[in-house]
């Protein structure tokens, strides 16, 4: 039997992103250059007075770590689900 699209369970996200909000300086690189629009900049402040990113659409995260490559403050990174941060099997 051919399954219709509707009956397929929503796919689990391929990855996730971890933000260290207190280390962030609010430059916005991560949110701007995330290829799938996972991140948005918060209107709130961290303790240093910067606006950190928030995860606005976690389901879209591929864990590609492009946000981690852009972040000049080493405050964010992406991980592929089932993999160790930076690659490698769990």
């Amino acid at each position, binding site marked *: 039997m051919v399954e219709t699209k509707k009956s397929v369970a929503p796919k689990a996200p391929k990855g996730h992103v*971890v933000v*260290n*909000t*207190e*280390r962030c*300086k*609010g*430059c*916005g*690189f991560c949110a*701007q*250059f995330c290829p799938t629009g996972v991140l*948005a900049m*918060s*209107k*709130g*402040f*961290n*303790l240093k007075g*910067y*606006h*950190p990113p*928030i*995860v*606005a*659409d*976690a389901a879209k995260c591929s864990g590609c770590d*492009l946000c*981690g*490559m*852009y*972040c*000049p*403050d*080493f*405050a964010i*990174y992406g*991980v592929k689900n089932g993999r160790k*941060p*930076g*690659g490698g099997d769990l």
Partner: protein
Amino acid sequence: MSESYEATVTDPVSAPMTCDSNPVEDWLRMDRMPHIWCPGCGIGTSVNCFTRAIEESSLDRKNIAIVSGIGCTGRVAGYLLLDSFHTTHGRALPFATGLKLASPKTKVVVYSGDGDLFAIGGNHFIHAARRNLDMTVLCVNNFNYGMTGGQVAPTTPEFAIASTTPYGSVERPFNLPYLAQSCGAVYVARWTVYHVKQLQRSIREALEKPGFTFIEMVAPCPTLFVRRNRLGDGLAALESYEENAVIKNGADTRECDLGMGGPIVCGKFVDIDRPSYLSNQVAHLRKVLGDRYVMPDAWQGVVE
């Protein structure tokens, strides 16, 4: 998900800024964090490309030494968890030269600013490239002296404003890839910190190639150069790099000048082979001295 961010109430002193599993932390001296770089400064982004390039390269991190001069970029040596030398202003290359001669098995990387490498240190650069010393030079070009308040540099584009040129610089800047190629570098590339993946790949290639390899990494100094020239913030600068970049591998370096608002030609421009200083020296001395030539101990088994 809610737009607002719930401010954490953790006390930053009792809960220091740790985030155990960020993979880049393996490469950083975490006791030195937070670093001094301003919000949106491109230096940190270049460091991410560098650490990932080493990670995927065939190099053993215990064999890498990083040498910086003085400047905001010069701080990189002090932040990386590698053997590091934070030397005097402009003298990263002389230190690196001595290090390479004494320990040829060490992969020597010079990581410094445009002012450090091309103003006070410009003379060292041309000679290190001419000799084809085995080392990789990574230059963060932010078009000014960041650390000291944004003075004009030999890389400041024509008519750009710096603290010492309030009406705009009237000097012609160095075209760094052309300079490096003319002096004899065997690998020359330019990327901006918008091009993280390409930059990572290029750094890896440069690290793995014997001889004098050079990469110009165009990066924003949002606090000084970008602000003074009314170009917005760091993010606006990266967006302008995305817009203005023209990727042209193998481009004629004579056509890679950078001007205000003009195209930023990026790519790998030079990838040639010629004998490095050390191998040339050994081959020549063997030829003229024959059996009388005694190779220094530290060179044995390393220099062919």
